[in-house]
Every structure is written in structure tokens, then in C-alpha cells.
């Protein structure tokens, strides 16, 4: 039985990706190539890279949607492949492109998902209502998801990711597609989750989004992790009027 408030292994690094390789096919370069990255408790790690760099692939492997070709991913010490159920019980995921059963209403889905955490219908409803309110959807609970706008779907996937108050989050381009109010909400949310000791991986190709929010920024290029900037380094780059973006282009060797 997975109770949704399991808090036993708090001291372990929350998200640990070791030597992750993912190949979609036999030929060609790997989509993610030997990536090692740890995201600790109470840490926001920005995950930056160009289109096709491998951000979504990494996140999908971490959430158990795709299997690593090799390498290990541990969530609170549980292996995502061999201990999938345990690993998933402490993961919240917001997909790049939210995709939900179009004919369902939000509360129906939240109740369904809640069942996987041992939440009964009433618990899911109460928790779901709080989350739908927090994400600004409390006025749209009678609509089917097919009638949600892209941004509303993103808000719904935020709510769905927080259902069991997990300790780890994967936000894939979550700011993308949200209105200014939504962006402000997510920024506040991420900071709040951090203050409650959650580990967060937040992918984006817009570096400005990450520079104020992230504790560290991991830069991925053509599947390889090319640099992990810590706060001091980020501040140093920006200090002399420098731009993170220029630094980014210089390390990936691109002249734009």
C-alpha cells in the first residue's frame, strides 16, 4: 500500500541520474548520452538546451515513460525501472504537451489518479478541489478536458502532478504556454516547493526564465551534459552585465 504521505528516506539525494543513455534506434547518435546529474532536497535545477537537445527524453526516462538504454535513475533511492511503483509514488510530472483523456472532466481524472496513491474518492476530491483552485481552474470543473485551452491543460497537469504532494518534480517547459498570471503562479509555486524541501528539475530553452529561479543550471547539448552552473557561476556570468545566453552559446560553441 502506498500511502501518499510517505516520508522515510528524506536524507537521500532525491533525484539521481547516473550515466543515463537513451537511444531511440540502433543507428545515429544517442538522444541522451551518458548524462549524470543529481538534484538534491530543496533544490531547483534548471535544465537548458536547444530544441532536440535531450531534455524531454531525460525527463521521460526519469518518470518511467520510456526505458533507459543504459544507466540508472534513482528517485529517493528507488530505481525507476526495477522499483517503478515505489519510485513513482514520490514523483510529480508536468509534461511538455499535456495529454489527458479528452472526454473526462478534471475531477474524474484526479479521482482516478488518486486511487493509485491509496486515496479514496473523498480524499481525492478534497485534495483535487484545493489544487484546482490553486491552479485557477475552480471555475472550469464542469468542462471536459477536450474543451480546455492549451494553457488550461497545462494548469491541470500542474494540479495533477501535486495530487499526492510528492517530494520530487519534473517540470518540462512548464512556463511555456502559460499566461503572465500562470507564469507568476508557477514561479511562486516552484519557490514554495523548494522551501518545503522538494527536488525540482525544470527544463526550458529560455535561459532568462531560469537565471533567477534556479539554484543550478544544467546545460545539455546533443544529448551530453556540457556544464552545470552553480549559483556563484550564474551570478558571476551575469555580474558584469553579461548574459547567460551568451555564456550558453559560447559553451555549446555556437555563434549567433
Amino acid at each position: 500500500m502506498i500511502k501518499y504521505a510517505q516520508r522515510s528516506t528524506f536524507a537521500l539525494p532525491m533525484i539521481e541520474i547516473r550515466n543515463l543513455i537513451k537511444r531511440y534506434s540502433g543507428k545515429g547518435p544517442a538522444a541522451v548520452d551518458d548524462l549524470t546529474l543529481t538534484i538534491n532536497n530543496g533544490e531547483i535545477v534548471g535544465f537548458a538546451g536547444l530544441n532536440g537537445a535531450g531534455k524531454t527524453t531525460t525527463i521521460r526516462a526519469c518518470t518511467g515513460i520510456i526505458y533507459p538504454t543504459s544507466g540508472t535513475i534513482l528517485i529517493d533511492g528507488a530505481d525507476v525501472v526495477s522499483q517503478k511503483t515505489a519510485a513513482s509514488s514520490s514523483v510529480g510530472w508536468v509534461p511538455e504537451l499535456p495529454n489527458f483523456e479528452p472526454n473526462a472532466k478534471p475531477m474524474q481524472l484526479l479521482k482516478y489518479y488518486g486511487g493509485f496513491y491509496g486515496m479514496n474518492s473523498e480524499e481525492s476530491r478534497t485534495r483535487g478541489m484545493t489544487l484546482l483552485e490553486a491552479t485557477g481552474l475552480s471555475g472550469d470543473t464542469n468542462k471536459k478536458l477536450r474543451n480546455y485551452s492549451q494553457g488550461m491543460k497545462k494548469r491541470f497537469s500542474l494540479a495533477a502532478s501535486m495530487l499526492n504532494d510528492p517530494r520530487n518534480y519534473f517540470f518540462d517547459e512548464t512556463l511555456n504556454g502559460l499566461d503572465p498570471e500562470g507564469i507568476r503562479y508557477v514561479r511562486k509555486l516552484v519557490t514554495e516547493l523548494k522551501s518545503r524541501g522538494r527536488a525540482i528539475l525544470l527544463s526550458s530553452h529560455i535561459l532568462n526564465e531560469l537565471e533567477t529561479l534556479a539554484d543550478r543550471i544544467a546545460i545539455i547539448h546533443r544529448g551530453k551534459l556540457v556544464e552545470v552552473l552553480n549559483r556563484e557561476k550564474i551570478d558571476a556570468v551575469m555580474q558584469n552585465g553579461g548574459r547567460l545566453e551568451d555564456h550558453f552559446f559560447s559553451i555549446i560553441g555556437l555563434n549567433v
Partner: protein
Amino acid sequence: MQNFIYEMQRTFRSKLVIVMMIIIILASSLVAYGITGPGSPKPVIKPSMTHAAQAVIFNIMNAVFLFLIPVLAIFEGYIIYGKDRTNGVLESVVTRPTTKGQILFSRFFACAASIFIGLLLSTLIIDAGVASYYATGLPLSMMLALIAAYLVAGAAFIGLVFLLSHLVKSQTSVLGLAITIFLVMVIFWDTITFLILILALKLSPGTIGFGKAEVILSFINPAYFGSNVVLYATDVSLFGGFFGTGINPAAYGVTLTSLVAVGIAWMALPILSAYAMAKKFD
């Protein structure tokens, strides 16, 4: 395990699955009505059940299930799994505390259970109809054989659609291929096998080789598994080989053991292959 049961129960309670069960039951009720209804006025003294009468009834039931079970199984497999798998909706479930295997098998078992319950109830309804006309109902062993045979067919077609969902990427391809499978394996199988035997294998109808080949071809198609079982059990073909080969497989060395073995293989192989595909290519 808890989440496996949770997902299975949820699938089993879905509207579609319930509608499918009702369709099976309604169709068979019509058959029962045909046997006992206005077409055959109820006799004052009920006639005793003969082997010939049994064969007629089982052949009629077989003809109904032969079309109904594959259609419903394919439809269920598509709506319950294929659609969600190919449009990506399944991903939002996979990331919950469960596994791909659990989702795959729990949904598969729920679909198979609905086919089983539909078959069980319809057979009981037909039996009740028969018992109201004849002095006795149908022999239990033959009812069980028919249910088991069409559970095999149902599970095989559900499994095939699950497998398709892991082989192709789009919803329309899964649906298109599923319909193709239905046309090839249910509607045109007799024609296709006949043409293969005559044109490709140059066998002439009526010869031993032709019969043997026909029986073999009917065994590589799960839709005809029920027909084979009925022929094996009753040794009477009513429809001149239209619904199935019309040849008792026992005449070509098929035994009960081999029937059971083929049945188990048809239930297990498609769904296990679907699981293997997910493990290997996701």
C-alpha cells in the same frame, strides 16, 4: 498488486465494457428466442434432447459468437487500450505508482473477463431457452467447451489489438489494422484459405491433403477456434463448412490435448508479445 486490482476494477466498470457484455447477452437471448419463440411453438410434451438437436443448437450459437466475439474483442481492445496507448493518454497513467505491465495486464484481464461473463450469461440464457422447449437443457461439458473456446478467441483478439498498439504509432493505424484483421480473419478467411489451397498449394478439394491443410489453416486463426471445438465436440457441421472448415479436426489427428494447447497459446501469445514489445522498444 493493489493498483493492479484497482485498474482492473476500474476498466471492468467502464461503460464500454458493460455495453459489450450487454450486446453479447442480447444477441444470445435472440438465439434463445429463436429456438423457443414463435418459430417453434412450445410442445405440450417436451421432446427429449437428441444429439442432432444439440448439434443444431451449438452450430447456431457458434455462428453468432464467431462474428460477435471478435468484433467486440477488437472494439474493446481498441477503446480500452489501443486508443490511449497511441494518443499518449496512457502516459499520464504510467507515471503514477504502477507499471506498464500492470496497466497492460489489468486492462487485458478486465476485457477478457467481460467477454467471459458475457459468454457465460448468454450460454445460460440459451440453455434456459432450450430447457423450456426440450425435456433437458444442453450438456454442461459442451457449454463449458463453447465458453472456453470463445474466451480463447476473445482473449486472442484483445491481445492482438494490444499488440498492434505497440507496433504502430497512430490511432488510425491501430483501428485500420484491427478492422483489416477482422475482415481477413473472420469475414474472408474461408475465401482466402480456399484460394491459398487451390492456387498456391495446388490442392484439389475433397482430397486428404486439402482437408488436412484446411484444418491447419483454421487452427492458425483464433476466430475459428470455436468452430473447431464445436465440430470436435458434436461432429456435425450444419452450414456446409461456411462457418469454419466443416471438417471435424479429430479426423486429422487433432486431440483434446492439442486443442487445449492451441487455446492456451492463443490466449497468451498476443498479450505476452505486446508486453515484450513495450519492454523492448519504449
